[in-house]
């Protein structure tokens, strides 16, 4: 009998503990989602409604005009172009920058783990160093180099900058992943007659799904959200989304259109959100795969 009661107590305590845990989790979720709620709600209200001062309430009049305005007609700096051209600038910058840095990182990881050479540890250490260099330090030398290469103020220039500064991280990711990749597979492929690049394309890359996802998410969010390099190295016609958003929000003429600003901010954050939602599962899986086993 005594045993049965202890068991019942245990079950009851378990339920209570569970309830507390869920309550805390819900509280934190609300806390984190509140800003998003405020942005969403206010981006579909007419400006008058926001001016009345009730940020938290749902819209009485629902309108998508702020979104349309933010996308195509809002005043960015001096031009009433909306965020659209800058969004395109960002896409044109992010896609090649992510692809090139991921590919080079994979190649680096492949060489550093499977084609070891004298001093490979030093090379890896130096590459890792790139992860710790504050970006502000390199602004002036980078500007000089972009000038020398004739890439100053262009999208290819920004791609180059992001590839160079992404390489440390992408190399780190791929090196650690390939370190756990069995070397016997490489040897088997060598005996089968596959060369350096064939082994890379046919054996290694097809087995790198999880780490490619991790690298793409990491690089995509970092490059898409970058403000410093965009502000420093882009010309007016190559400015990325983040700069345009700043110009939209801090434009000094006319009324502050908060609803348009909210819509614009959501537009700017949307691609990274989508990347996370689509591949978030693989993100965790990839991190685990790298951490525990190959």
């Amino acid at each position, binding site marked *: 009998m005594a045993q049965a009661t202890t068991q019942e107590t245990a079950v009851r305590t378990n339920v209570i503990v569970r309830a507390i845990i869920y309550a805390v989790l819900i509280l934190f979720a609300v806390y984190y989602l509140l800003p998003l709620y405020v942005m969403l709600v206010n981006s579909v209200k007419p400006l008058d409604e926001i001016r009345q001062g009730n940020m938290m309430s749902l819209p009485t009049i629902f309108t998508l005009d702020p979104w349309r305005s933010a996308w195509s007609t809002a005043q960015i700096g001096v031009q009433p172009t909306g965020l659209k051209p800058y969004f395109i600038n960002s896409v044109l910058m992010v896609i090649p920058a992510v692809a090139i840095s991921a590919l080079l990182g994979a190649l680096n990881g492949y060489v550093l783990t499977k084609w070891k050479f004298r001093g490979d540890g030093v090379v890896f250490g130096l590459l890792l160093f790139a992860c710790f260099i504050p970006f502000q330090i390199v602004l002036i030398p980078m500007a000089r180099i972009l000038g020398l290469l004739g890439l100053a103020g262009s999208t290819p220039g920004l791609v180059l900058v992001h590839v160079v500064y992404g390489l440390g991280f992408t190399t780190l990711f791929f090196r650690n992943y390939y370190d756990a990749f069995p070397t*016997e*597979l490489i040897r088997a492929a*060598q*005996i*089968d*007659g*596959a060369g350096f690049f*064939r082994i890379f394309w046919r054996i290694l890359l097809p087995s790198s799904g999880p780490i490619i996802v991790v690298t793409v998410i990491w690089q995509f969010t970092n490059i898409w959200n970058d403000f410093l390099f965009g502000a420093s190295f882009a010309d007016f016609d190559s400015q990325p989304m983040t700069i345009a958003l700043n110009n939209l929000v801090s434009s000094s003429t006319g009324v502050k259109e908060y609803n348009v600003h909210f819509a614009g901010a959501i537009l700017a954050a949307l691609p990274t959100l989508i990347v996370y939602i689509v591949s978030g599962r693989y993100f965790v899986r990839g991190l685990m795969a790298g951490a525990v086993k190959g």
Partner: protein
Amino acid sequence: MAFLEISNLQKRFGTVDVLKGINLAVEEGGFLVLVGPSGCGKSTLLNTIAGLESITSGEIRINGRTVNNLHPSQRDIAMVFQSYALYPNMSVGQNIAFGMEMRGVPKAERDKAVAGVAKTLQISHLLDRKPSQLSGGQRQRVAMGRALVRDPQVFLFDEPLSNLDAKLRVDMRTEIKRLHQSMKTTIVYVTHDQIEAMTLATQIAVLKDGILQQFGTPHEIYNNPANVFVADFMGSPAMNLIPARIEANGGGVAVVLNREGTEPLQLKVANNAKLSAHAGRDVIFGLRPEAITDLSGADRTSAKVVNADCHVEVVEPAGADTYVVTRLGGREVIGRMRSDMQVAPHSTVPFAFNMDKAVYFDPKSELRIA
């Protein structure tokens, strides 16, 4: 000239000598097993034959052709790895065909070759599966298929059975032997399992610390070990190695083994010139468990069986045999008796020592003296 020749092969990693001048020669169709404890350099030796490791000095010849500086793919060899090393992103069929694909063999020909090999190894029904969907034994077969399809001059096996469970290991061992008998291709096989070495090899090379200890047929290695290491390493249970003294005894000599609590055991040996030279000196006396038996189990063809009563310490019935442990020269000595022998621990029973099989080593140099 031998088919696979290795002469004075040296391999150095930095300042560490891994292989210190290896000389080996295998005839065409031979089955060479490289055996030794871990870290003895046997896998490194195999990798240098494969071309996966460069060599510091020496020469490797396959069928008269020096392959020292050839790429692994150009040495006409095929290798089966310990972890099987199947490409995880390819199906079984693609795995087997990959080498041919790299050599530009047309698709139709590849498919035909894959089908043939799959039939030999009974894996035809697995060709569309991924390696992750296979059991250990099936992966092993696929790995062998990948090697077989190449039809090379030399097969290299790197501990291919060590990842299998005990029963499957014995089955696959038989299968490898059968394949070798039907194909008659030269094989070099690395293992740390001396039973695999004994059962498979036509020639065994025993390595330790990068030095070739002995190279010979399984029979030679087992019955005429060159030194204490080989004697101890080959055979299970291991050979009894007992400190002893040689003394002149009448016309011949006797091996004298100290015993606790009773007078020393004297085992007479018919006149033996080599041994007589060591009269009055200490030696290490080696005798395998199967040469220490009960009286009726003694080898009748041997002329030199010596009977003696010994005190039994432990009895270990092993089904087919009963292992009986006694103590001689301060060492545990294992004898192998018939399974139906009734031996009680702490009793004194007669043992038969087959002195035909006895070997003698110098206690200092550990080299064979007789």
